[in-house]
């Protein structure tokens, strides 16, 4: 089955109020071309699930997000995401802030179609009080009788991840050091989209890396988007590193509404991802 699609078609499936998961980690291998497409859309009231980076900063800043489920939001080389900080400090999003491991557990529970997975992480901390309407505990039915956190399944309406290579059928490959949680996002979601740096023939996948790098198989993917440079400005090794200069410029706009306005006009009001990539080339 040929699953090739575009950012516009994939994002066109989304509806206000949906829960979407975005793969990658911090400012690493984020499906930014999809994020840019969401920014072009009229979507609102989304619940965003993310090991957050600029995806979280941009979508929250642009008013697309009503609720965010996260463990942190960071730009890595800039430890605190300044746009996300501003949104939080304005009380403009509902924050379900979890321990990072709990977030993995919630996605894993959804992936396995379980109602929850137990853990000690969270007990005794204010994760339990600030998320009191969302988190419950469970007692071990065995002799130990230990009380544990029951991290609820985080079921996603749609998941978006960015990989280095994929074929048209949805087999996808990471070639960098870390697969992050991208497979869990896909397993936890009803609709699953992978964008990739380069579409290749199935028979060519192993030319880029060992079989261990084939993290997504086609049963986990509904749509494949070829998006060279699609992770920009986050890193996507070995294809490219983070565009630190661009990220710095993005971060600096948090302090200055005029600068944000200019940044948004220049980069985020373009008609298409192709225009964005063209403007990037002109800039270089």
């Amino acid at each position, binding site marked *: 089955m040929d699953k090739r699609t575009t950012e516009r078609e994939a994002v066109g499936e989304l509806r206000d109020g949906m829960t979407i998961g975005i793969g990658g980690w911090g400012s690493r291998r984020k499906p930014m071309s999809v994020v840019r497409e969401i920014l072009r859309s009229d979507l609102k009231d989304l619940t965003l699930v993310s090991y957050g980076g600029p995806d979280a900063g941009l979508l929250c800043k642009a008013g697309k997000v009503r609720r965010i489920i996260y463990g942190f939001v960071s730009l890595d080389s800039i430890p605190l995401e300044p746009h996300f900080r501003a949104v939080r400090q304005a009380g403009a999003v509902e924050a379900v802030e979890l*321990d990072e491991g*709990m977030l993995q557990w919630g996605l894993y529970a959804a992936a396995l179609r379980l109602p929850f997975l137990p853990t*000690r*992480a969270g*007990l*005794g901390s204010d994760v339990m009080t600030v998320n009191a309407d969302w988190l419950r505990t469970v007692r071990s039915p065995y002799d130990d009788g230990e*009380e544990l956190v029951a991290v609820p399944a985080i079921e996603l309406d749609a998941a978006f991840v960015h990989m280095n290579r994929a074929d048209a059928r949805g087999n996808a490959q990471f070639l960098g050091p870390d697969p992050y*949680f991208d497979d869990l996002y896909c397993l936890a979601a009803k609709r699953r989209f992978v964008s990739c740096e380069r579409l290749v023939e199935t028979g060519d996948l192993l030319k880029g890396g060992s079989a261990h790098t084939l993290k997504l198989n086609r049963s986990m993917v509904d749509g494949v988007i070829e998006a060279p440079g699609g992770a920009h400005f986050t890193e996507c090794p070995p294809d490219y590193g983070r565009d630190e200069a661009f990220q710095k410029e993005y971060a600096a706009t948090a302090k200055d509404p005029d600068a944000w306005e200019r940044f948004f006009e220049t980069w985020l009001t373009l008609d298409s991802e192709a225009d964005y990539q063209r403007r990037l080339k002109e800039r270089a």
Partner: protein
Amino acid sequence: MSDASRAEVCAVAVAEVFRGDGERLASAFGAVPTIGARLARLTFEPDLLMTDGVAFLRADVPPLGAEAGDDAVVEGWLPFRSVFDLLWNGRRHVVMTASQIDRYGNHNFACIGPHEKPRAQLLGMRGAPGNTLCHPTSYWVPNHSSKVFVEKVDVVSGVGYDRARALGPAGRFHEIRRVVSNLGVFDFATPDNRMRLASLHPGVSVDEVVEQTGFELAIDGDVPPTRLPEAEELRLVREVLDPRGARDREVVG
């Protein structure tokens, strides 16, 4: 008389928190904790494991700032998908920074002010809740003051002794080993695990520590001085681990 700077005394104090850890992953955040962990590895704790800050375990010990260098000797793979396995399995000791900490070691680096609308969003919960329940944790405070050492933290990200005790069996892996600040070293070796002044860095008085601490510390008798760096430790810190002197920008004096 040692000519060690305050930052170098702190680095050795951080190294000491790892004494006896053996084959554990030593994680440290900040310049002084990173130097301290690597110093322990190069001297009395050669079996510690360390990451390159990305996804690999490094068998060699790089200088500060060269963690993910191309010349790394890789001895293992630790992507984020495996990190929580290792953490919740217990074979790690982390040194985290603290924006606030109370007398029982309850810790906050998530945000300042009410969580629903904080005055300052900081790091978020990150892994602190799970870390503190699953494996030994120590803290690093480069700017000891009553704004950091507080009566009550705004949000509990890392769990302290009073809260861990209240959990019963779920708290059995909880251990806050030590708090190292720019003024001294603190532990919880008291009957009810209240924070105790364990040692004073050279040139710091008990009065100064008390004045800069927002709660009552346990202080028993004459407080000993923090161990001074040995000549070989100073050489390793200055020539091998931090030739550019990042430590002295994190702690002045």
